[in-house]
């Protein structure tokens, strides 16, 4: 069963703009992860935020987590055409021993 639900399903922006994607989930989690998938390729891990963290940065990526609202957001600043991809959130429950539940993803298109 899928726990994470990304919003929006698709997002189209111009190069240089910021892109924000949201993820909602249903049950208590140990951590939440964001992945990127280029067309026809496997997923690549971007960033992990633990349940006791509220915000995390990695380069042009900023992730927030609100456990009271069971939601997370991924912000990509100063987007580039190369950021065009699908982005997925994945949640890890306590005791899941590495298993993740993935959402359906947001398809981001960055136009040059």
């Amino acid at each position: 069963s899928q726990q994470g639900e990304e919003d929006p399903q698709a997002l189209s922006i111009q190069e240089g703009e910021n892109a924000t994607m949201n993820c909602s989930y249903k049950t208590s989690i140990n951590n939440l992860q964001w992945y990127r998938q280029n067309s026809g390729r496997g997923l690549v891990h971007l960033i992990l935020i633990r349940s006791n963290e509220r915000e995390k940065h990695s380069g042009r990526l900023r992730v927030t987590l609100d456990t009271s609202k069971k939601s997370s957001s991924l912000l990509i600043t100063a987007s580039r055409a190369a950021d065009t991809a699908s982005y997925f959130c994945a949640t890890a429950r306590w005791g899941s021993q590495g298993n993740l539940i993935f959402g359906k993803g947001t398809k981001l298109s960055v136009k040059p």
Partner: protein
Amino acid sequence: SQTIHQWPATLVQPVGSPLSLECTVEGTSNPNLYWYRQAAGRGLQLLFYSVGIGQISSEVPQNLSASRPQDRQFILSSKKLLLSDSGFYLCAWNLGQDGQPQHFGDGTRLSIL
């Protein structure tokens, strides 16, 4: 460093034919291994996962089976493919502890005719 290999990259098979997709991991020991299927433009559906040799957990009833004959080898099989088995199959690994990211292969695009 760890690497994951998945093959073939693409496969076209007739309905009713058998299937064997292979995934191997290098550079780590006793990984958790996962098989996912992704329908076009959709999220990932977990099919099978394995925490050790010969240990397979199935997430959904289906026409597929998985085996782990060696520590770093994971095989997805079918005796008779159905049209509904078409999709993009992804193999992944991690160290099986809470909070570990998963690392994915490049996938196999399976088309059933």
